[in-house]
């Protein structure tokens, strides 16, 4: 230990700490300044940025003693006496805060820039300064606007041009939690520190496929400071979990099926000791042959990932069958038949997974902490049952799965949803929830398990890699006559949400078009790769790329305009989806196409042109996405609203639901619905999310469903409460609960309505290709989204900008690469999501075709913006270069080769080593 002296946020600080500390650790752990966040510990993400002597540095790789005697500024220093710093105010005004995990780092980086450049700063300077400070949520446009406003430039928040539908509905409002986030006061799971808390780590398989011969934990157990080492033998209840099929071991028993499998868990007095203990666990394996490719896994002699199943590695065969496919193609004047490949991708939410479990009977006083008898949760509260703090997308399912593993009833477990630093589908499955609960009950102490970025990359489910063959037929006027497709989806080692995700890929595989004859076969296949699961877009991202690439090829063949061929076929009221669902309302696709088309075609419009060594071109694509679970699944959300009069006789309310906020803006939506019903200002509404003991089940935060279902539940609970309040005496608070059931849907293959609503969109991308290097830049995106009704234009804009940029990453930069079941992408430095330098100018139009069941007519929008951008970009690339991209992400090396050799397509993406395999269509079998 040595004395470290800092001038921290204006005050001298002297602290005795080991010289081996990094600055981030001293700030967060030793000084409790948890405003500074950790995303990678690799100097990659930039969210740990603080200022040392006024200069931004990444505190995660900055030794604390390198800062000896220096001035250090963190996010906590920015607001003085309750007065927000102009940057903080601007981030609120512009909705530049979503999940908020990046916000402290982004703001501190921006502060240094602002201090240096003042009012004159330019977009270019912002881009240079923030190049390596990442944000996964916002897409950066709102960040840029906010920084310029803070510099004193006259920049208004960019909002869609809509007529507000109410006093709260349709009005911009920052998310209620944003204020804490910009001040560095928001607490994510890793920011909690319970008295007596232990630190846990997981022993990972490291090998993709092996039978476990023995597990020896004796040496680990004997290490001083180790409190518990558990293996499968110590799981009292069901040693499997899974959202659809319970095939995922809590701790592996007979075999391991992917490199990230959990074999043993350790809780110790410190994280260092826990890490050292892992090294001492000896596991003997008999390695098995590895199957790492979905198509190879269907061969009769392929190694079996799960033994004893009738269908071998086939997890599920999903089918859509409509009309007469042969007749459809016979009637076509032109047919395009093409095979595409899409990569596995990583959510890269900037907050790695973290869970804390507190054992039943916990009293902080027992460990020298203080007790607050009024505290309902947190470090000062008593806990009467096993309680898990986690930034989860599905609190109630976490509860159920944990209870099953503990061998107790669900209500013997409580899940408290902490703030989530990004999810995007990647925080639906169990990670550390069960493990910490087991360890907490074993040791009778709170236990924290924080994944490192590298562990996060290894363990949680990815976006499905797919191979998609699609055959599209049309008449000479563009009318589609038939679509036939085969999809192979790599489900990885465990089922997770594969069946649901690939069902969506299948049902959306004819695009948002009225196609009379459709046949789609989709195969979800187990392999020894990382499991695949939910990821914003939920399978539709993949099939849309194929569908919309084919549409442009068809248009070219028929000599039709790209917008025209889409208009001819666009779903509309009275037209039917590929599953035979006839739309009766809320289908604004044509209007979306028109708005984008007009926006793109200014005067002197050209589809493509040259400037210097660059070619520019526009590309167009459209998409639709269901709102809600659909397919016959009961889709329910509960909400509770409590209403009272405060001292000044104004009405206040709190709305409670266990739906999850990941930064998408749900609290503001719920508050708006309640405020609207009660006729009170939104600021009078508090939102409590995700405490399974206090909040009704909101169901999973997935499928763009929460605005619709939880929004409705909140609205209807508020309406009930308002009635009660009218009859109550003025001193009383009243409470009402509403369990909202979304309209009944029908299972795939049974006909009728598979979904209760669809959202639609069109996007045009302007792309620049550097003809010397093959580099691709997206310069502009014009988008139009039919969202039914705008609840909060500010968070809506954020969802759209963020979704578009996320899909730019999918198209140009992202690929989670696995080699024979082992991730090559084992550090963040090997996975690049879009940085501020990738963000295009975005013009977003909103179309409002209300859906009668939605709250005020709203339907979901969380996923839609991130779906068609890839096809729009690749259609533009084709127009500029004559090269059709068949595999993502676009590889500049391959693209340049094709341009130079005159090849008309590329089938190797970055990270691909093999050409796209040939797959058969259903009718050929």
């Amino acid at each position: 230990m040595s004395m470290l002296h800092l001038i921290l946020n204006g005050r001298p600080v002297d602290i005795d700490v080991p010289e081996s500390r990094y600055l981030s650790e001293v700030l967060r752990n030793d000084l409790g300044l948890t405003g500074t966040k950790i995303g990678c510990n690799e100097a990659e993400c930039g969210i740990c940025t603080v200022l040392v002597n006024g200069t931004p540095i990444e505190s995660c790789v900055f030794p604390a003693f390198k800062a000896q005697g220096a001035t250090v500024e963190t996010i906590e220093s920015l607001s003085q006496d309750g007065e927000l710093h102009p940057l903080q105010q601007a981030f609120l005004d512009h909705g530049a805060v979503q999940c908020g995990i990046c916000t402290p780092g982004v703001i501190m980086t921006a502060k240094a820039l602002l201090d240096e450049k003042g009012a004159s700063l330019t977009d270019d300077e912002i881009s240079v300064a923030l190049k390596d400070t990442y944000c996964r949520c916002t897409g950066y446009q709102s960040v840029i606007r906010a920084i310029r406003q803070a510099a004193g430039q006259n920049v208004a928040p960019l909002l869609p041009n809509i007529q507000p539908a109410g006093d709260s509905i349709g009005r911009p409002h920052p998310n209620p939690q944003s204020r804490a986030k910009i001040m560095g006061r928001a607490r994510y799971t890793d920011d909690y520190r319970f008295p007596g808390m232990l630190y846990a780590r997981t022993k990972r398989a490291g090998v993709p496929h092996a039978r476990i011969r023995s597990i020896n934990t004796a040496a680990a157990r004997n290490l001083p400071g180790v409190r518990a080492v558990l293996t499968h033998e110590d799981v009292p209840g069901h040693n499997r979990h899974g959202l659809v099929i319970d095939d995922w071991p809590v701790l592996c028993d007979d075999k391991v099926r992917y490199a990230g499998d959990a074999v043993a868990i350790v809780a110790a007095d410190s994280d260092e000791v826990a890490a050292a203990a892992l090294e001492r666990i000896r596991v003997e394996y008999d390695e098995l042959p590895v199957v790492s490719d979905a198509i190879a896994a269907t061969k009769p002699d392929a190694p079996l990932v799960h033994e004893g199943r009738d269908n071998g590695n086939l997890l599920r065969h999903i089918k859509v069958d409509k009309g007469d496919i042969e007749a459809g193609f016979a009637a076509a004047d032109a047919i395009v038949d093409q095979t595409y490949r899409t990569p596995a991708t990583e959510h890269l939410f900037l907050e790695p997974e973290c869970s804390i479990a507190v054992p039943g009977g916990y009293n902080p006083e027992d460990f020298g902490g203080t007790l607050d008898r009024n505290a309902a949760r947190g470090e000062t509260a008593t806990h009467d049952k096993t309680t898990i703090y986690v930034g989860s997308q599905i609190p109630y399912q976490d509860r159920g799965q944990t209870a099953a593993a503990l061998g107790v009833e669900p209500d013997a477990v409580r899940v408290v949803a902490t703030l989530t630093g990004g999810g995007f589908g990647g925080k639906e499955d169990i990670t550390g929830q069960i493990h910490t609960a087991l360890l907490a009950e074993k040791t009778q102490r709170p236990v924290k398990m924080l994944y490192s970025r590298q562990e996060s990359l290894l363990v949680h489910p990815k976006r499905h890699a797919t191979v998609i063959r699609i055959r599209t037929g049309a008449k000479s006027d563009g009318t589609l006559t038939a679509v036939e497709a085969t999809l192979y989806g790599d489900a990885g080692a465990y089922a997770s949400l594969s069946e649901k995700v690939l069902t969506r890929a299948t049902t959306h595989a004819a695009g948002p078009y009225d196609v009379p004859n459709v046949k789609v076969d989709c195969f979800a296949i187990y392999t020894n790769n990382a499991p695949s699961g939910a990821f914003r877009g939920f399978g539709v991202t993949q099939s849309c790329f194929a569908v919309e690439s084919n549409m442009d090829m068809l248009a070219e063949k028929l000599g039709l305009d790209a917008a025209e061929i889409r208009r001819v076929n666009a779903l509309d009221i009275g037209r039917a989806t590929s599953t035979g669902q006839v739309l009766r309302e809320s289908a604004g696709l044509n209007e979306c196409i028109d708005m984008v088309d007009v926006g793109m075609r200014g005067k002197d419009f050209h589809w493509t042109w040259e400037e210097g060594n660059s070619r520019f071109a526009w590309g167009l694509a459209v998409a639709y996405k269901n709102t809600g679970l659909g397919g016959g699944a009961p889709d329910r959300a509960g909400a509770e609203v409590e209403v009272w009069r405060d001292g000044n006789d104004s009405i206040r309310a709190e709305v409670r639901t266990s739906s999850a906020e990941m930064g998408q803006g749900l609290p503001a939506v719920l508050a708006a619905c309640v405020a609207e019903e009660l006729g009170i200002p939104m600021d009078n509404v508090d939102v409590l999310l995700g405490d399974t003991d206090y909040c009704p089940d909101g169901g999973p935060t997935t499928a763009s469903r929460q605005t619709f279902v939880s929004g409705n539940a909140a609205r209807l609970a508020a309406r009930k409460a308002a009635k009660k309040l009218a009859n109550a005496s003025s001193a009383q608070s009243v409470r009402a609960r509403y369990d909202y059931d979304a309209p009944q849907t029908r299972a795939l293959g049974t006909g009728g309505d598979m979904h209760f609503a669809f959202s639609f969109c069109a996007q045009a991308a302007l792309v620049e290709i550097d003809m010397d290097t093959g580099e691709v830049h997206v310069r502009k995106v014009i988008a139009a989204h039919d969202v039914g009704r705008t609840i909060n234009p500010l968070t809506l804009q954020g969802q759209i900008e963020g979704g578009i940029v996320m899909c730019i990453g999918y198209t140009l930069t992202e690929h989670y690469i696995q080699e024979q079941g082992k991730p090559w992408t084992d550090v963040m430095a090997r996975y690049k999501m879009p940085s501020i330098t990738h963000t295009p100018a975005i013009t977003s139009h909103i179309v409002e075709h209300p859906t009668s069941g939605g709250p005020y007519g709203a339907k979901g929008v969380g996923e839609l913006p991130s779906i068609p951008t890839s096809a729009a970009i690749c259609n533009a690339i084709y127009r500029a270069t004559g090269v059709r991209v068949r595999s993502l992400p676009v590889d500049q090396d391959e693209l340049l080769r094709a341009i130079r050799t005159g090849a008309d397509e590329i089938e190797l993406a970055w990270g691909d080593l093999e050409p796209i395999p040939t797959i058969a269509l259903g009718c050929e079998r």
Partner: protein
Amino acid sequence: MANASPNRWDRYYTPATVAEAIELLQQYDGQARVVGGGTDLLVETRRGLHRPAQAMVDVTNIGGLDTITSDDGHIVMGCGVTHSQIVTNALIIERGSCLAESCSVIGGPQVRNVGTLAGNVAHALPAGDGTIGLLALGGEIEVAGEGGSHWMPLQESFKGPGKSFIDRHRQILTRLRFTPTAEREGSAHHRVMRPQGLCLPIISMGVRVKLDDDDTISAVRISMGPVGPVPYLAETAMDVLVGGPATPEQFRQAAEVALNSVSLRASKYRASHEYREQMVRTFLPMILNRAVERAQGTGL
């Protein structure tokens, strides 16, 4: 507790003089490691890629070695000088353009604010950007150790990929220097990257050109990486250019000769052989041209 934390160090020293730093290194007898900004070393250390060191000797706080000075016909940079200092230094921007350009593409601002040119050189990657820039300028480095200190040409320090003749447990790269470009001289750097994972350049190239009064090239240096185990000086291409006119045809010729003298390799997930070749063909002439324009006083 010796080495309580894996992949860490027990002591972190920030000596104020070179003598003090050398003494520490001697005292630890190979168990201490020299660290600059730590943007390479500590990231790798965190990943467990280095044997644990008992002590880190941080050389960025040494008095007089954290500045850029002009001295005896040289521009001299101490080992504490960061990339950010270099890219904002007016003298280097004008008279060592290719160094300013090469340091400006390193990382993001946070990395440039702490990463040093000395660390870039001592790390000895085949295509460290600052290194490629300095190599084109004909840079020299001063290495201090037990037996005193001496200047040596930059290229003599490279042993292999990531391997330096500087013993980073016992010696310190204390200063770096180059002769600034004079009248009728110019320099330029260019790098090609890919936007996907792996922050290593596909190709990084620097040139320094000197012109006669009649615009023939009287001297030239061309550096490239990664084209082999160490940063490469393309001498055969330099020979082609010297004494000839500064024309596009000559530049194209130089690129071909450079390509003939090296074996560009395909590296998985980074670049194909053909792509690397193509980038040399496109950008070596381009930066030669830019350097010539600077020498003529017409370029930016």
